[in-house]
């Protein structure tokens, strides 16, 4: 697909979602089950991105000690859980990865 066509389609999809209920309000109401499902979108989508990034950095499942991204990501998850601070989580995770890359041969 041409990259500009792709960008326009992505933009249209995003815009339509944002506009949908602002315009349709009063005409349709979301049933509770749809609202629950929508609340589950962020955890489901984000985890589906995170897990392969940490567990298969080279495209194959790697649970070995040499998988540095798994260590750094786990540490970042603990920081996120304890502090709820986005920038601190990213900072700790990146520094951990750099330190591990410098210390452990990979």
């Amino acid at each position, binding site marked *: 697909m041409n990259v500009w066509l792709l960008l326009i389609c992505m933009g249209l999809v995003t815009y339509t979602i944002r506009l*949908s209920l*602002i315009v349709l309000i009063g005409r349709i109401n979301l049933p509770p089950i749809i609202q629950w499902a929508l609340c589950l979108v962020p955890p489901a989508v984000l985890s589906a991105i995170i897990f392969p990034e940490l567990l298969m950095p080279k495209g194959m*499942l790697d649970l070995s000690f040499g998988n540095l991204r798994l260590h750094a990501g786990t540490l970042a998850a603990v920081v996120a859980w304890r502090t709820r601070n986005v920038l601190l989580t990213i900072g700790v995770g990146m520094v951990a990865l750099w330190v591990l890359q410098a210390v452990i041969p990979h």
Partner: protein
Amino acid sequence: MPILLGVVPFGMIYGVLAVGAGLTVGAAMAMSSIVFAGSAQFVSVQLIHAGAPGLIIVFTTFIVNLRHILYSASIAPYLAKLNPMWKWLLAYLLTDEAYAVTITRYNQEAASSVKSASRHWYLLGAGLAMWSTWQVSTAAGIFLGAQVPSSWSLDFTIALTFIALVVPALRDRPSLAAALSAGIIAVLAFGLPYKLGLIVAAISGMAVGLWVETRWLSNGRRGEQGDSR
């Protein structure tokens, strides 16, 4: 508005990654102004880099941005009396951050029973501030992009950003179940053609979360007691 400062590094990282994924400067900038949705931009840049087909990228964008339906629904009553021009404009600016600050403000107003006739200006202001910050930081990242060596592993910031967003949100069993199952299925489905794995995993995770939610509601009390025994 500290939230604006928080957006700057994301915009810059997006710019660096977009150029690294092979997008031209024009296309990388255009994505920030046409799509204007941070997480979807991160994910699509990854997919473009992996050579995924356009239809999959568009559908993944749809899934990643589905949460905005909730924002649209919750902000709609406050905008109901505006003319269509305003609605069309404000919908474009309805990002996570603009929504968060605006709905907080509206809820405070509702609590204090002070009705402001011009509150759509607040969303416009927040949205435009976000928009400008995003464009400028994206441009800075694109400009830096060529000078950042790949040994810095900056692509890892995508996973870290999403960890930072998702972990604090795992407050109940349904969302935890959705996150774990989506993650595991994403690993299992990684080899699916056309990079379909993300879509399959996200939809399966939502289904598992809904299933846990209905079970939790129907016999949640008994389950709690059973656990604490």
